């Protein structure tokens, strides 16, 4: 049985060549502790880009 995350992929259709997230990756996307760390990291990355652009 296909994993839930992979159910939308159809062989030899337009989405057969892409990647799809697994359960762990999807959990990380909404894990508050992990996302709080990523929030700090993304903000720093964005501030660097903003700084380089002014």
């Amino acid at each position, binding site marked *: 049985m296909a994993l839930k995350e992979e159910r939308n992929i159809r062989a030899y259709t337009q989405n057969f060549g892409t990647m799809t997230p697994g359960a762990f990756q999807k959990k990380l996307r*909404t894990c508050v502790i992990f996302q709080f760390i990523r929030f700090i990291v993304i903000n720093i990355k964005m501030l660097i880009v903003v700084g380089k652009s002014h």
Partner: protein
Amino acid sequence: MAKLVILGGGVSGHTTATFAAKWLGSEHEVIVVTPNSQWNWIPSNIWVGVGQMKKEEVTFDLAPVYKKAGITFIQAKATEIHPEGSDTIEKAFVTVESTSSGSEGEVTTVEYDYLVNATGPKLNFGATEGLGKGSELGEHTVSVCTAGHAVHANDKLKEAIEKMKSGVRQKILVGTGHGLCTCQGAAFEYIFNVEHELNKAGVRDMADIKWISNESFLGDFGMGGLHMKSMGFAVSSKIFAESLFTERGIPWIVGAHVNKVEEGKVHYELLDGEMGEEEFDFAMLIPPFTGVDLKAIAKDGSDISDTMFAPNKFMKVDAKYGVTDYNQWKASDWPSTYQSSAYKNIFAPGIAFAPPHPISKPMKSPNGTVITPAPPRTGMPAGIIGKAVAHSVCDLITKGEDAELHKISMADMGAACVASTGKGIFDGTAAAMTVYPVIPDFDKYPGTGRDTNHTFGEIGLAGHWIKHILHHMFIYKAKLKPGWTLIPE
């Protein structure tokens, strides 16, 4: 006393006006001419379009803000620029037509020493049969380009959701309404918000959602795509975007020029020349942009619009125009001062400047139809350019006409973008992306054209939080609240 006139009160014009007023003080006059009485934080229109925000949360009245800043506010649309004056008026001036309640249509003139054309785009719905007339949205589709459009879009979406709840299956189509559109990112964000809302309403299984756009591949975004660093790979935005669509079960049509819209159906032509039709019950299609209807008139009364404006009505500036071969394009083609190529006291920041060429590779169908995304110039680049132009004009006024102009090219500038899915603090996710530089520089960054150390994309709640912060921070800044100058563009 010098007189600086700014046409347009959007991201770019507002940035130029507020910084110029602060730096010039009361010794000089800053005038903003804009047809809108309100400022709109356009990125949050997406949330208005799905009912997650009210129009009042993304707009505010300009008049009190400009009064506080010492800026003269004229609610009117500019119709003509007279850069050499006229027989009866010695100085350069613009002709404006009032849009203010009680004086609509009244025509007056506003003299200037320096002019900033930050008029942004004309939403050219009329370019596609059935999409609308001129800049007016038609009756078959919806838009999220203005706060008013977004309110209308939400009303129609709610009607579709009610039908789904009553057991009627609905076809939803989101994307671009012409082969030359830009702003794919807005449609990209909207389709995922719609999908999120349908899930919340418990009717996702009653909807067939489909994407249609003029991008030659999913994830082009009008920037020729990008490669972002992820999991140790330089991952193409094509993979990134296709993954997001696949995860949500949304199929896509790309390389499409929508050439006709009628009730419940769009007709389109693909890059391979094939013609197709797609039915819909609810469709949000972004219109193509052109410059606003602004003429340039010489002192003798002759029309010199062709000298000042490109055929798409955007203002010609210090860009390298006329390079049509994609293989000859250079990052240095892009402008850096935004000074009019015809008049040194005129500037055009933001969407109003004529780009030298697209960023995406130009493509045509075998029938000769051009299907190529126009280059995006909204958001962060518009604000940064607006501030650089304010610097330049202030220096010209205070230091003299020989003052060095401030330079900032989109080829040396990055952009940060957050595309949300839903609005909750703990539900939904957002794609947070940065790209550096906006214009790929294949000489400096062979291969991807961009610095992959500073080009990244990530999906998660953190992006949501950032989008919330950006919403409040930029409205705070635009209202000129204490410390507003500390917030970057």
